[in-house]
C-alpha cells in the first residue's frame, strides 16, 4: 500500500525492470510496447500494444507487468490493449538495440521493411541478400538469410558465412 500515488515517471522506471519473456535481456519499455501510462483516479492504466497479432507472449507480458506493479504497491491496475498505431521496430530503443546485439540477435535495420520489393525478390531468388546484416558474434557483413520466419514471430533466421554461426535477425515491421 502506497501513501501517495507514484508519478508516471516512477511507473515508467518500474516498467523498465519488466523483462520481455522471449528476450529476457530487454525490457518491455526497450521493446516499445508500453504506449501509455496514466492515472484514472486511483486506477493505474497501462496501454500495451502487441508486437505481432498472434504473439503468444502477450498474455505472459501482461501478467509480468501487472505482477511487477503490484509488488511495487500499486493496487488498482487496468491493462489496455492498444492496436493503433501498430507496433513498429522503430520503437525499439537504442539501448535495446545494443542489448539485442550483445545477446546474439542482430537488431533491425530500419527502412528495409517496404522498399523496392521487386529488387529484393530478385536478390532473394538469386540467393543474395539485399540487406547488410552484421553477424552479432563476429561483426562480419558476409551473412545470408536462411528464412524470413524464425524462432518467434518477430525474428528471421540468418547465418554468418565467415564464423558460420546461425543467428536471429530482429526483422523490420
Amino acid at each position, binding site marked *: 500500500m502506497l501513501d501517495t500515488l507514484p508519478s508516471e515517471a516512477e511507473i515508467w522506471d518500474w516498467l523498465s525492470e519488466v523483462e520481455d519473456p522471449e528476450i529476457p535481456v530487454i525490457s518491455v519499455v526497450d521493446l516499445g510496447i508500453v504506449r501509455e501510462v496514466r492515472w484514472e483516479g486511483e486506477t493505474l492504466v497501462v496501454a500495451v500494444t*502487441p508486437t*505481432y*497479432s*498472434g*504473439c*503468444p507472449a502477450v498474455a505472459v507480458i501482461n501478467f509480468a507487468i501487472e505482477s511487477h506493479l503490484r509488488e511495487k504497491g500499486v493496487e488498482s491496475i487496468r491493462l489496455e490493449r492498444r*492496436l*493503433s*498505431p*501498430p507496433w*513498429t521496430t522503430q520503437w525499439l530503443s537504442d539501448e535495446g538495440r545494443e542489448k539485442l546485439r550483445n545477446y546474439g540477435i542482430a537488431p533491425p535495420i530500419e527502412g528495409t*521493411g*517496404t*522498399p*523496392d*520489393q*521487386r529488387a*529484393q*525478390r530478385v536478390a*532473394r*531468388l538469386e540467393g543474395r541478400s539485399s540487406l547488410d546484416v552484421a553477424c552479432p558474434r563476429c561483426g562480419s557483413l558476409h551473412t545470408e538469410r*536462411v*528464412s*524470413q*520466419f*524464425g*524462432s518467434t*514471430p518477430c525474428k528471421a*533466421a540468418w547465418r554468418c558465412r565467415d564464423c558460420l554461426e546461425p543467428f536471429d535477425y530482429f*526483422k523490420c*515491421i
Partner: protein
Amino acid sequence: MPSLPDMNATNVEELALRAAEQQHHDPHVQNVDLKPAFFDWLCRMGDNALIAGHRLSEWCGKGPALEEDIALANTALDLIGHAQMWLGLAAEVEDESRDADKLAYLRDAMRFRNVQLLELPRGDIGETLMRQFLFDAWHHAMLSRLTDSSSPRVAEIAAKALKEVHYHLERSSDLVIRLGDGSEESHRRMDAALALYWPYTGELFESDGVDKAVIAEGIAPDPEDLRATWDETVGEVLREATLEVPEAKGHVHTGGRSGRHTEHLGFLLAEMQFLQRAYPGASW
C-alpha cells in the same frame, strides 16, 4: 520487369497513423440498423483468417524442412491473431455476450462465413503454398483498402494485420516462383494445384447484400474493385513461375460467405472445436 503495385504500399505507416487519430469513437459499432450486416462481414474477415490459419497449423511438426515448418506455423499464428481481432470486434458489434472464442469454437459449419477456397484440405506442400499465395494476394489488397475504412476499429485491425500479411505474400510469392519454375515434378504439381484452386478464387470477389450495406457506409471496398490488383499480382507471379494463368471466366465454386460449405469444413471444425465441445468453458 514490372513491379508489384500492391506490395509497394510504402505509406503503411502514414495510413496507420491516420487510422490512429480517429480511433476513439466508432459510430458504426453501435449502429443498430447496420448490426446484422456489419456482424456478418466481420465474421467473413475473421473466419477467412481463422480457417486459413487452422489449415496452415496442420503442418506444425510436419513441414518438409525445418525452416518451412517454422514459417508455416508463424503464418498460422499471425492469421489466428487476426481472427481474434476480427471476431472480437464482431462479438462487440453483435452485443449478445459472446466473445471471439465463443464465435470460433461454438458455431456450427453453416454459421461460418469463410470462402470455400480456404477450407479445402491442405493437400501437399505445393497445394498449400499455391492456395496461400492466391489468398495472400487478395488479403493484402483487401487490408490495404481497409486501412482507409470509415470505421476506425476496422482500420486499426487492418493496419496491424497488413504489416504481417506483407511478409506472408512475399514468402508465398517466392515459393510459388521457386516451385513453379523448379523441377519438372514441382512444376507439374504447382500446375495441378493452380487448376484445383482457381475455380474457388471467384468467390473472393463476389458481393451480396451484406457487402452492399458495409460498402454504403464506407466501411469496406467493393470486392470487385480488388480484382485488378489481384489479377496483376497473381498474373505476374504465375508468369515468373512459368505457370499458365487460367481463363478468367469459368465455373466458380461459391457459397461459403453465406454459410454453404464443402464437406471439408465440418471435419476441420470437428478437430478445431473438439476441446470446447467436449469440455465447455475449459481454459488453460
